[in-house]
């Protein structure tokens, strides 16, 4: 076997949750690993490393992508939103809030992928029916919940967004998340 060659490192700058993030990484560095280990945002989880489970779903310029199927260098100069960008404990985004209200998670490992997926979905489909909500989450695997309460969460998130009014509730930025946080009290 040939001698291994030290890896060339490349400069990558990606805007993650509205903050420019830079690292020098090998070309093969996965976006998921870049976010988790280089940027230190561990909310994005890796469940299968081959794009099936959807746990690693992040938003690339607002659209859901599998972070385990993309190289960090491919995301150069793009805008990424991770679960950390959807809101905080003090100011949850509407989808985050709905999941906590509806018991839409159990172990929480797949949840970040659902939250990002649903956030993007509701941007385009603000008033889903139950069947549409189920269809919308049918590309993500959850082993705990049986999905029923996730469907419920999607519908509830749509309600919260609607109550927060137009322009609020995408959860894609900290401001939007803060705006939407008043949507529902316990």
């Amino acid at each position: 076997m040939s001698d291994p060659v030290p890896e060339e490192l490349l400069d990558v700058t990606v805007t993650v949750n509205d903050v420019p993030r830079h690292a020098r990484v090998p070309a093969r560095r996965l976006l998921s690993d870049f976010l988790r280990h280089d940027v230190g945002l561990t909310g994005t989880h890796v469940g299968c490393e081959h794009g099936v489970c959807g746990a690693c779903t992040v938003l690339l310029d607002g659209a859901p992508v599998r972070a385990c199927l993309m190289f960090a260098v491919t995301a150069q100069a793009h805008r990424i939103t991770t679960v950390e960008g959807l809101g905080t404990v003090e100011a949850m985004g509407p989808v985050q809030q709905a999941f906590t209200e509806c018991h839409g998670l159990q172990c929480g490992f797949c949840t970040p992928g659902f939250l990002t997926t649903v956030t993007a979905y509701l941007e385009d489909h603000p008033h889903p029916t139950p069947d549409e909500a189920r269809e919308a989450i049918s590309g993500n695997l959850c082993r705990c919940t049986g999905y029923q309460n996730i469907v419920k969460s999607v519908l509830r998130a749509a309600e919260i967004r609607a109550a927060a009014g137009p322009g609020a509730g995408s959860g894609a930025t900290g401001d939007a998340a803060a705006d939407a946080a008043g949507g529902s009290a316990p």
Partner: protein
Amino acid sequence: MTTQMFGAPIRRREDPRLVTGGGRYLDDLGKGALAAAFVRSPHAHAKVVDIDVTDALDVEGLVAIYTHEDLPGRVGEPLPLLIPHPALTHGRTQHALARGEVNHVGEPVVMVVARDRYLAEDACARIRVDYEPLPPVVGIEAARAAELLVHEDVPGNVAAHMLQEVGDVEAALAAAPHVLELDLAIERSASMPLEGKGVYARWDADRDELRIYSSTQTSTGVRAAVAAKLGMPLAKVECIAPDVGGGFGVKINHPWPEEVLVPWVAKTLGTEVKWVEDRREHFISSAHERGQLHQVRVGFDDDGRLLALDVRFWHDNGAYTPYGIIVPIITSTQLLGPYKPASYRCEFWSLYTNTVLVTPYRGAGRPQGCFAMERTMDAIADELGLDRTEVRSRNFILPEDMPYDHGLLFQDGRPLKYDSGDFPATLDKLKALVGWDDFAGYRDRARAEGRRVGLGIGCYVEGTGVGPYEGGHIQVETSGRVNVSTGLTSQGQGHETAFAQVVAQELGVPIEDVFVTTGDTRRMPYAVGTFASRAAVMSGNAIALAARQVRAKALRIAADALEVSADDLEIVDGVVRVKGAPDSSMSLGTVSVMSNPLRYAFDEAAKAATQFAGSNDPDKPPVADDDEPGLEGRDFYSPTQATFANGMHAAVVETDPVTAEIRILRYCVVHDCGPMINPMIVEGQVHGGVAQGVGGALYERMVYDESGQLLNASFMDFLMPYASEVPHIETDHLETPSPLNPLGIKGAGEAGCIPVSAVIASAISDAEGFAITSMPISPVELWELRRRHDAGDIPSLRHHDATTRKHR
């Protein structure tokens, strides 16, 4: 009054953290730790002839490479056999790294440690292992035939043979008016949590101490096993289960090879090392379950009453038996469900195959047992032309029969004795929920439209909350914060919430003040683990008992201070007050201050407990001889036996007359786990269990080829259900209390998945008019069964339409 917390469907306290990226799972820890990766066997059965690491040595960032030869002392010995049993005469466990022989694809052979995982994998790819392949044993039939052996020194591939009998089954069969024989099969599936296993170990050279984080269902188990393997004092090893991304059974087995090797190498190198299982590794080197073949002989009278039940089954335990024979023992006992056959015999053989080892997966042998029993019940109904629910009713153990002792030994080595349950009431609720008595009309209408629909049913009883014990520790800080710890771990069951509810209720404090820690050996070193639907029963009761201690102590201290009798006090919203005179009161935080006599005032409130602060009795010590400082309580709950939950499910399915596609139109669950601490969480457990059951019934199977390669070791090929495959689940509950524990509760974790294969098989049989005897079932298989049925190879049901129609 303090808000009623026990029984309230409150939101989970862990969720805000988990939905904002604040969870801390195994791979979120140890930034900068060295990474371990493994070279694993590509062969199902082979001798390891030579290992050549030369090419790997130049890989940048490589730190170390280890083979079995490098493992010292006990680290190199076989892993422990966790649950010995007299019937397990030929138990075998693997070495942490293979010693000369591999017995399944995926068995670890070489460990590489490098600066990061990418580089460790690079080095693994450059290591050459020469194998001498041996013929593998794949599948139960091959294991049973025993023309080839997995382990040379295990004759017949039989790890264990066990027989339990109550009554004289042969005589009862001979005398029975009706006898049926059934062959019933269930294939392999697996727990398949979204987060695989993982372990991260930190060696503290300054203190000669080891800290282990593991994605485990038992941190005390891992701690003890690693300390023993490494020859370390227990006091120098601690283990913490961080947030765990699902378990479903597979993470109760321990120590996994990596759980020994990673701590050992961290200690050896004096640093931090982490290994996180990837998905393929999880498929080929963790554990599977479910694979069993069953033969049932049943004798019954003209009314369908069970006179004799004779079950023989063959259990595929894979290559090794670290977890003993718990799964087949559970099948052999829990198969009985809610029924009382006049005589029962169950005999099983646990067999080695050259496949991934088998440890419990949610349900743990019960889905197979339930399938065998419920298919038998349907067969009896069909034989006699009786409604399927009628046959079941006639065999139920009745509420007045409780406690009901089956005369068998259960998985905990204790009598299989049901504590409570109202099976007729459960069935009534289920029939009402699904509309059992109206189904015949629905089917007739569907038939008229050219559609095939069927109704299925399945009943089960689940022994939950097995011992030996769990503990609870509660400490009230001077701020009023209530710290609660229990040693068992959490994998998504909402323990931080449910246990806080128990404490809030028992102690009379706002739930916002209660903080629960699980699975941390620093906080509670005595614990067993999370399995067998036991967490709420075991830790819930232990924590309740501890809370009662704290309450008693708080009342005693406050009674002294307020100069009243403790009987006149109550605790409401964290304040101890005189009943009827709430102005005479003190907060629990103040009680905590007073519980701990001080020399030094660390803050304003603490001044009240210092030595010149008030009057004291010079003849008494500041802490009484029989007392301890602090407002704390610790207690353990250790039951004499398990408590038995039950449930019944029904489903309506539709099968496509042309394509044989199978759709679940309705799925109904009636569930009785006693009083529910948090109904929202119980409901969620049921939903998740049913979804896994649906996977096991219609989609999931481990496809091994004849050479022992697992062909579908990815999420692309192993079909776990998405939302599009799981039906909406309709639920109803009974809450029959257990007389066995202070809270009267039973476990709920596994319930949802137990009867699903039985229910779906029952419904498909009802739709098709012939019996389904093997699960899971795909459209292709159903299509093939139809063809064989049409060709006369498979008999039609005898009284098809009668089995959902009451005889009037």
